[in-house]
């Protein structure tokens, strides 16, 4: 065993005194403060012990405990408590006090700092009748506390209070030879000045400790000031009067002067994959919640999306199903369209990429890039099947893996060893369509010169990062691409199904999908309105939000912006990039081929309403980290949050009005208690708005649920159902509580609109709420207004949600859990759309 100590370090006094006192044998080495003994700690920490087993100890208290135990003493609960107190309560104050006394020379201030903490020790000793802290003999706690307090208590200038008992105990311990020896070795001379060197090397003190951890937000109640409460009460009583009338949406929506013009896109889903729940929450649903919210806020907002239809995967699928690529696209476009309609995705326009506009705009951008010298030519080696008369895309080839000899390696990657493969390296390659052996041919291709655009890109990114909302993962992925340096990227392919390259020598080639798929946003808008350039060539007026899953980030933050920057045509570039992490399915991945997971077209067959799906998917939205879909959790959230919390509150509030007050909202006389709940609700509303403005969709939903939780508590405490049977005062009180509650319910309908549009509408119908109440309350920073005045007649109230029982859920879980008989042979659907996956895989080889 070896002990490392340094001079002037009070922690070392502890271990040395313990060593002397217990008489344990040990090598000793004196080091400087800066010398590092414990390899895994980031800062040098002493004292440290190296045990014979190789284990290192770096906590002085643990070392003392160890020495006492080796010396045959047992550690009692009381000792443990004192050691814990020393480490957590005393040390932070002590370090601060020593800092003030030694480095700033303010002894009296240091004494004041210590008073409260030391008075606890005084009190502790007053409850003891023993000579020492825990027993009649000196134990580990005595050594540790004595050593810690030595610099303070041995200094006569430092007054930390009377402390008779503490000083008495301190004196008794001081007489131990072990203590004298330890002090002589570590703190020779005047204790305080000996510490100077050590204290200067300590990291800056963080006196301000972080009090509320983010995970504890549920427990932390917002503390309101009296003023806040009063203002909230007044705002509420003001009612809807001054609010504006909602503007109806008229197509085409175009940017307007003096308005906030917001353009929202969600990643274009690849046409021949049926989207699964992860795709839906990652792109279209997130963008939909935000768009609905934006429209309520009165923004001039356009939300476009469409299917991405070109590329090898479509050709492949067409071969498989014996249809033409166009027929495949038509078939699957209809499936997509139906799914999003069922999920109530409120696109302004849902288009597709196989249009004339797509060709025109892509070719225009291409020519501009060519003219400006941002394209370069190069030859690429590729496999070509002479029998099928075409170059083979990576997924069309199979062969023996050059690394592990796995016989069924694909053209881009080996499924066995996972290594990336360049298709021409495959041994014995075979065409997957006809089974013949392909030959290696060189083919000319065009590359987008990304390195040439890198400087301009970085400049623009810097500005966009600092002014817009980019999720952390989006920034991180983008930065890592830039850090690795950009390489030229091939933008053409030897395929038929795509946008043709408008050059004679490239007649048989088309644009590589990653180049022209994002142009789909522009062409889809062009199909919506001939004035599309007012959105897309208008960076001064338009704010662009892109929604996607994180694997799509580089195409939207690096590659596509480079195309647009290089075209030099005043294009609108992305200001806010919102990327989700992945949604897993019951702790595994969604997989079409294994039949695992819920896919968009199956959701409606479950009998669970679209609104409940929307609620649960946003509730588990992979915001900031991966999350997972779980049937049991879906049922739990439906039953606890929707049924028992939200639905229960809204239903009770409405029922009180119909049952006790003949369906007319009663008079309000606000008491402090009512103002308090109004202020609480108003605060949650403000949070909700702040969060959704920053596209924190999942977090904002929690605020909605908090509002109804507050409402339920309020009803529970005030018991209007009892008061209604009482005297005049009580009946009035019941009226006020009912009236406040039903107005909270009305606010909830507004806050729910982006998440659960049908439920929101149902609530408004049940309450006969004025149409403009939602936009009035969600305007500016958010106002909780009394939108249902005294005498307002509400409609028929009925339950909003249904219970999901466990048997029903178990049946669904089994049905969607996978291994459901021989599955149709179709390509694996991973959580990422195959377009991007393929592109990345292809590019890796370059």
């Amino acid at each position, binding site marked *: 065993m070896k002990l490392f100590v340094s001079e002037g370090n009070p922690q070392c006094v502890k271990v040395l005194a313990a060593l002397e006192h217990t008489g344990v044998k040990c090598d000793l080495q004196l080091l400087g403060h800066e010398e590092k003994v414990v*390899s*895994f*700690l*980031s800062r040098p920490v002493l004292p440290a012990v190296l*045990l014979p*087993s190789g*284990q290192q*100890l*770096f*906590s002085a*208290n*643990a*070392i003392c*405990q*160890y020495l006492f*135990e*080796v010396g045959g003493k047992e*550690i009692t*609960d009381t000792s*443990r*408590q004192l*050691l*814990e*107190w020393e*480490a*957590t309560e005393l*040390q932070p104050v002590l370090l601060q006090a020593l800092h003030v006394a030694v480095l700033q020379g303010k002894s009296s201030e240091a004494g004041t700092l210590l008073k409260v903490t030391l008075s606890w020790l005084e009190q502790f000793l007053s409850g003891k009748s023993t000579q020492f802290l825990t027993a009649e003999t000196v134990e580990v706690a005595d050594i540790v506390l004595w050593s810690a307090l030595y610099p303070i208590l041995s200094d006569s200038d430092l007054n930390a209070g009377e402390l008779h008992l503490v000083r008495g105990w301190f004196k008794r311990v001081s007489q131990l030879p072990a203590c004298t020896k330890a002090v002589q070795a570590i703190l020779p001379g005047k204790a305080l000045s000996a510490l100077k060197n050590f204290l200067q090397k300590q990291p800056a003190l*963080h006196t301000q*400790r*972080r*009090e509320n*951890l*983010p*995970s*504890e937000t549920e*427990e932390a109640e917002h503390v309101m000031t009296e003023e806040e409460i009063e203002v909230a009460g007044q705002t509420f009583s003001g009612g809807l009067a001054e609010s504006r009338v909602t503007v109806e949406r008229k197509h085409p929506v175009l940017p307007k002067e003096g308005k906030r013009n917001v353009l929202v896109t969600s990643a274009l889903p690849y046409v021949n994959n049926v989207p699964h729940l992860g795709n839906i929450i990652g792109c279209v649903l997130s963008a939909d919640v935000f768009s609905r919210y934006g429209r309520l806020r009165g923004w001039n907002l356009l939300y476009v999306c469409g299917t991405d239809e070109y590329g090898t995967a479509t050709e492949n699928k067409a071969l498989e199903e014996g249809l033409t690529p166009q027929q495949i696209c038509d078939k699957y476009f209809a499936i997509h369209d139906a799914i999003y309609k069922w999920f109530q995705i409120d696109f302004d326009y849902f288009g597709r990429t196989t249009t004339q506009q797509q060709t025109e705009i892509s070719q225009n951008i291409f020519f501009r890039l060519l003219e400006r010298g941002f394209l370069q030519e190069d030859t690429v080696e590729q496999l070509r099947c002479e029998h099928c008369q075409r170059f083979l895309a990576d997924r069309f080839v199979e062969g023996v893996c050059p690394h592990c000899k796995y016989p069924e390696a694909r053209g881009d990657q080996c499924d066995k060893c996972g290594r*990336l493969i360049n298709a021409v390296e495959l041994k014995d390659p075979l065409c997957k369509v006809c089974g013949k052996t392909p030959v290696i041919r060189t083919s000319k291709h065009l590359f987008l010169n990304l390195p040439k655009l890198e400087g301009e890109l970085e400049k623009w990114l810097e500005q966009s990062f600092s002014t817009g909302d980019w999720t*952390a*993962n989006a920034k*991180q992925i983008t930065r*890592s*691409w830039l850090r*690795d340096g950009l390489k030229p990227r091939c933008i053409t392919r030897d395929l038929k199904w795509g946008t043709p390259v408008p050059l004679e020598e490239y007649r048989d080639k088309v644009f590589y999908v990653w180049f022209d798929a994002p142009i789909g946003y522009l062409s889809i808008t062009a199909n919506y309105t001939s004035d599309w350039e007012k959105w897309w060539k208008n960076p001064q007026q338009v704010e662009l939000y892109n929604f996607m899953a994180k694997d799509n980030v*580089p195409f939207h933050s690096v590659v596509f912006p480079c195309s647009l920057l290089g075209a030099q045509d005043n294009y609108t570039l992305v200001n806010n990039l919102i990327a989700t*992490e*992945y949604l*897993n399915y019951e*702790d595994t991945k969604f997989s079409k081929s294994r039949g695992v997971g819920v896919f968009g077209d199956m959701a409606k067959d479950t009998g669970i309403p679209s609104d409940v799906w929307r609620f649960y998917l946003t509730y588990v939205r992979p915001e*900031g*980290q*991966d*999350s*997972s879909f779980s049937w049991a959790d879906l049922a739990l959230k439906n039953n606890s949050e929707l049924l028992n919390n939200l639905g229960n509150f809204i239903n009770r509030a409405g029922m009180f009005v119909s049952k006790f007050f003949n369906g007319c909202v009663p008079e309000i006389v606000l008491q402090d208690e009512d103002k308090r709940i109004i202020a609480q609700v108003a605060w949650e509303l403000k949070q909700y708005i702040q969060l959704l403005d920053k596209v924190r969709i999942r977090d904002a939903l929690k605020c909605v649920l908090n509002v109804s939780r507050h409402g339920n508590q309020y009803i529970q405490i005030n018991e209007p159902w009892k008061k209604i049977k009482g005297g005049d005062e009580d009946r009035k009180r019941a009226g006020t509580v009912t009236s406040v509650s039903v107005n909270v319910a009305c606010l909830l309908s507004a806050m729910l609109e982006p998440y659960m549009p049908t439920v929101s509408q149902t609530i408004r119908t049940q309450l006969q709420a004025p149409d403009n109440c939602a936009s009035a309350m969600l305007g500016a920073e958010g106002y909780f207004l009394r939108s249902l005045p005294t005498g307002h007649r509400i409609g028929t109230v009925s339950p909003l949600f249904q219970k999901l029982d466990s048997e029903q859920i178990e049946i669904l879980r089994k049905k969607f859990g996978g291994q459901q008989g021989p599955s149709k042979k179709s390509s694996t659907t991973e959580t990422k759309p195959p377009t991007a996956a393929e592109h*990345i895989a292809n*590019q*890796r080889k370059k």
Partner: protein
Amino acid sequence: MALRELSSLEKFVGLKRQKKISTQGERKVPVLQNNNGSSLIGLVTISSHLVSEAKKTELLGESVEQRAVVQQWLEYRLTRLDNCSQDEVNIILTELNEYLVDKVYLAGNSITLADALMYYGIHHIISELAVQQKEKYLNVTRWFDHIQHYPGVRHHLPPVIVLRNRVYQSNQH
């Protein structure tokens, strides 16, 4: 926070009767009220007491050495991890990651109180990590996943998903 953690610990060590535990002061330090009127203060003190009472002293360490290592990490949890700033989080994760390079548990070759309390204390940090960071602190993540699946430990905390396959390889792009 401390209370929920202690109640999970009670279940983990198999104590049937719930103890009378409250919190005191600004830092919400837990206090255990014993039947004989005496009390114990502090998370580590109370946890160690509960473990002894449940006759699971192996959780405090079976050798002198293991006991010292357990205490050391318990102290680390209280003094370094609790209420640490965002900058500190990365340092702590780096240190633990380094330490756990060749270890399955924090102390010795079996689960101890140090693993349980460190798990409870670090959960909110791990659950906020992006996949990339989880891979960066691979040893911490591995240890964390192991402890959260150790029978009886998790209780009040939601499971954090740890992917088995690596998503971010260095040769990604």
